[in-house]
């Protein structure tokens, strides 16, 4: 392995991040289907419907457009991997991806990556980082996701 000499810089500055609440999604799921795998317990949940409400974005979940493809690890924490499609109130399509962790202590946080039409009304969703916190019902079939933009 080649070594690297770190140059001296005067750029050890602390950058700030602020979160601004953007919208929330009430999502509805089929019961999880789970099976053991070498990586842990793979857990699939179909997203059957959902309603997204916010000041600048309103949409519905395109039924059965995906869902949760999570893995429950050996330490019982769920690696969250979600993909689905939304239809905005003006008819435009939007792709949504979640990557995060759902822990046994109630912590359910994720990053959402959103893709929309660059020439459409929701281009502002592209190249915006969203921080998500979620509340899950005890039967894990009703989840409300709250999205904040990381500014």
């Amino acid at each position: 392995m080649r070594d690297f000499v770190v140059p001296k810089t005067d750029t050890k500055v602390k950058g700030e991040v602020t979160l601004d609440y953007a919208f929330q999604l009430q999502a509805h799921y089929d019961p999880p289907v789970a099976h053991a795998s070498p990586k842990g317990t793979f857990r699939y949940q179909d997203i059957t419907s959902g309603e997204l409400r916010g000041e600048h974005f309103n949409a519905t979940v395109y039924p059965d457009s995906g869902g949760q493809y999570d893995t429950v690890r050996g330490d019982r924490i769920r690696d969250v991997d979600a993909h689905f499609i939304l239809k905005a109130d003006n008819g435009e399509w939007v792709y949504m991806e979640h990557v995060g962790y759902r822990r046994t202590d109630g912590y359910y946080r994720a990053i959402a990556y959103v893709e929309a039409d660059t020439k459409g009304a929701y281009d502002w969703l592209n190249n915006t980082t969203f921080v998500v916190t979620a509340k899950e019902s005890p039967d894990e079939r009703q989840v409300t996701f709250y999205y904040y933009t990381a500014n």
Partner: protein
Amino acid sequence: MNEPISRRALLTAVASAGVGASLAGVTRSVEAEETAHSSREPVSYFGAPDAQVPKVGLRWAFSATVFFADRIMINSPTPRGYTSVGGGEIWGPRLQGRVLPHSGADYFKTTFNTYYCFQASDGAIIFIHNRGTMRRFETPEPAHVRFRATPVFTAPSGPHEWMNRTVFVAHCQRQSNPDHTVFTYYEVL
């Protein structure tokens, strides 16, 4: 160490007293783990006008200065960029160390998508997969770029394993002469 007694120090003390084996069967809860490694950094909480919306907290975890080396473009169907990582430093409240020299690169398409390694001051190798967004705002003047990163870490079991169950968001600041980026990593609480 800031902590009066960490879990690691406790385990070391118990192990050296010859009773470490009795602890092996004890179930460790995530909450206890978080307390053992908790940080004294202040938490900034963000909420919404509607009090029903749960607040989200951010706490500075550490920072990384990353120096880049080669820049290559491959004209594949959707062009693939390659920007190699030379090395760098990691500093801050919850992690110190260096960027493992020449341990990876940004293999970007439209947005950055970086794979490389940190080496903590205790020698642990921590893998980082970092995705990010960059957006240019022309107004208000002066125009500015909002550059944010969202890493997923793979850390070994032990003192750094909290990184395997924590969501992070980072502020990124590009610098020139020499070409490097300063990442400020926040734990999402």
